């Protein structure tokens, strides 16, 4: 008994573990700056320059008790006397180098204040809400490393509106949460060079949206990566959304053969009839199919004259040649209303459609109605392109065809609902890849995707743009993108494009150009309180579990539990 108390006494007096008393580390003091250009911070002697990194958070403690939550945008070396650069002291001597470091020579940080945290009063949690920064801290305000508590205060806790997307750099225990409601409120974009993890990021975001049920998704899945499992770069397989959310995600395909080969479970094969295609759908392909303005005008004319079956007639004419009397087309030619060369070019170019097996002369089912039906029921739709994913014409044709019509129906429904929220259709997020092909400055103004991006949430439809060349996207559209999730980009034009319409972009450029090639992303815009560099969370078992997916032993356990529940008490042996 005696021993016990002695032990207790001993342990009670042990100093707390170092991590428990980890002091907030002071980095330096504010020495210059402005709100527009960011603050200059002179590093304290004890702060190691090499320990700083762009994209990390610091907190400036202002005179009035406000905390300025800021991000490091540049790290520099400075000296009190410029002549020191020309005649550096003999630093092989430890004494001299000790004296010079931190006095005549010192490290300097450029930090960009992003948010102000008012001094918390303790009783009112609202008082501590981060606000946009409108002023700068005074001269010589001390600068500290941001603590986990600070970061948590800014990026909030995970709840039904927020979804965990990653950790800030060097802060493994802190989670950055994305406000999904705000993410789907406006169009958003995922950018990055190929191989930087765009698909993983997108898949994570989509999983979040599906899990939290903030919107319904329509994904034009070019490379068949979202629906069923696909291979990651490390040769391991990752699960698709359909596997994670059975019953909530439905997969449609344009290429049933490819889906079957990959073992993807498909709900529905998509077929589009020639008679359902309008000239506007083909117009979108004018660049790819190199249709001239004359030829496009001729398309509209032909549609008017030939009626619904215009494409079928055009293709039949090109193929079979004459049979019997003069065809409608011959008559148009004879009347001089159509030039023979133009018609020939159109027929040749539309001949491409014959290679698309999902296009049929006549289709009785209504694909758009079917998809709308799914979306209305809150089911997320992923459209796999199979082998057509590598044919850009097919991708654009189908994406444009469906989006135009679905958007049209949303517009009708929203207008019918006239602001009564209950009748409004569920917010829809349309995911498109290779977005610069849809949102090219030359066509973005006319296409449906340009319209959706520009009209914001008016009709409850927004885009999730996945692209590797944001510079190819129309500037007006880019400026309307609410949330930008950007993995590494190194092309100057692309970087500039990503920051279109973002204030304080100059400093963030440095941050973006220095991201790791994988699993790091800069998130900025509507869904986060301030730009943030995250080590993105791994799309793997942990995420699967969080979104409610069970497998292996856990699945077996659940099965046993359910069986037990159904069978009732094991002791019960019947009435007889």
């Amino acid at each position, binding site marked *: 008994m005696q021993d016990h108390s002695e032990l207790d006494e001993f342990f009670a007096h042990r100093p707390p573990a170092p991590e428990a008393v980890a002091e907030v580390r002071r980095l330096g003091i504010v020495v210059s700056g402005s709100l527009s250009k960011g603050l200059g911070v002179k590093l304290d002697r004890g702060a190691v320059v090499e320990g700083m990194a762009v994209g990390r958070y610091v907190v400036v403690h202002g005179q009035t008790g406000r905390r300025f939550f800021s991000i490091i945008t540049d790290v520099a070396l400075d000296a009190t006397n410029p*002549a020191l650069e020309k005649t550096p002291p003999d630093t092989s001597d430890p*004494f*001299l180098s000790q004296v010079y470091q931190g006095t005549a020579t010192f490290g300097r940080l450029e930090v960009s204040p992003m948010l102000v945290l008012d001094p918390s009063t303790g009783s009112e949690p609202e008082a501590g809400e981060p606000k946009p920064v409108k002023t700068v801290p005074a001269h010589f305000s001390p600068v500290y490393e941001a603590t986990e508590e600070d970061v948590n205060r800014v990026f909030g806790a995970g709840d039904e509106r927020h979804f965990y997307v990653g950790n800030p750099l060097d802060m493994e225990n802190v989670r950055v949460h994305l406000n999904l409601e705000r993410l789907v409120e406006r169009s958003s974009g995922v950018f990055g060079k190929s191989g930087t993890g765009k698909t993983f990021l997108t898949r994570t975001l989509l999983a979040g949206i599906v899990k939290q049920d903030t919107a319904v998704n329509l994904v034009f899945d070019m490379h068949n990566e979202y629906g069923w499992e696909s291979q990651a770069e490390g040769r391991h397989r990752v699960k698709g959304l359909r596997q994670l959310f059975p019953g909530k995600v439905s997969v449609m395909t344009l290429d049933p053969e490819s889906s079957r080969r990959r073992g993807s479970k498909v709900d529905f094969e998509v077929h589009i009839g020639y008679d359902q295609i309008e000239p506007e759908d083909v117009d979108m392909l004018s660049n790819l199919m190199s249709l001239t303005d004359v030829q496009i005008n001729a398309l509209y004319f032909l549609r008017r004259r030939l009626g619904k079956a215009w494409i079928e007639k055009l293709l039949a004419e090109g193929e079979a040649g004459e049979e019997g009397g003069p065809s409608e087309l011959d008559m148009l030619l004879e009347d001089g209303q159509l030039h023979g060369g133009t018609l020939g070019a159109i027929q040749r170019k539309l001949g491409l459609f014959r290679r698309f097996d999902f296009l049929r002369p006549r289709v009785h089912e209504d694909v758009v109605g079917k998809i709308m039906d799914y979306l209305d029921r809150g089911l997320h739709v992923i459209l796999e392109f199979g082998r057509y994913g590598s044919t850009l014409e097919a991708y654009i044709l189908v994406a444009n065809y469906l989006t135009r019509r679905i958007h049209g129906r949303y517009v009708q429904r929203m207008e019918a609902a006239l602001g009564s929220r209950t009748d409004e259709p569920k917010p829809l997020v349309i995911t498109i890849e290779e977005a610069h092909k849809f949102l090219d400055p030359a066509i973005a103004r006319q296409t449906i995707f340009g319209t959706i991006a520009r009209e914001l949430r008016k009709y409850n439809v927004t885009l999730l743009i996945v692209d590797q060349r944001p510079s190819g996207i129309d500037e007006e559209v880019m400026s309307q993108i609410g949330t930008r999730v950007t993995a590494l980009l190194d092309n100057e034009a692309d970087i500039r494009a990503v920051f279109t319409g973002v204030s304080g972009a100059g400093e963030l450029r440095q941050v973006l150009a220095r991201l790791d090639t994988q699993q790091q992303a800069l998130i900025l815009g509507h869904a986060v309180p301030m730009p943030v560099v995250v080590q993105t969370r791994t799309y793997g078992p942990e995420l699967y579990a969080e979104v409610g997916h069970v497998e292996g032993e856990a699945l077996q356990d659940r099965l046993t539990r359910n069986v037990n529940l159904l069978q009732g008490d094991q002791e019960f042996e019947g009435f007889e």
Partner: protein
Amino acid sequence: MEIQVGRIIRSSTTRFAVGCRVLRPEVPVFGSLVKVPVLDDEVYGLIYDVCMEDDPYVRQIAVQEEVRAEHIEDQRRNRQVPIEVGVLVVGYRRGGTIVHRLPPQPPTSLDVLYTCTGEGLVEFTRRFDYFRLVLDNRDLPADELLAANLRYAAEARSDGQAFLVDAGRELARLLNMDLVRLDGLLRRLRDWA
């Protein structure tokens, strides 16, 4: 232990001179800290110069062909003109507080000058505000003087090396516009460190 150096023969607010009879191993030493009690205060200074003037008898002896050892000894012990020690004022103590500024009044003639070593030296050099009072004297070997003083101050401490680094940093701040001078001064400190 305080050793008496001599008595003041000439004095002003910034500098004063002390006369002493013989040169002993401990006093007077270039760069050492000294103090003079003046009324209720103590005025602190650094010894920047030790000067021996000639007199007619020394001149005569100097040119004799054979000088007897007794004569030399006698001349050294009973010199007609005293050894003159120059002291640069660097601060004062009033009411227990050491101030690194010029004192309101200079010491008076024939006040006694004592050495200030050990604890006293450590206490005075706890701050570095007196550097400016030393460095500003371009007519003195100010750098040499300060370096010598800092060496003694470092010797009086157990963590002399860290003290010198701190002092060096203060110098780097003060002399950042004159890198050549700074470098020379730091090298003098380093040679000891």
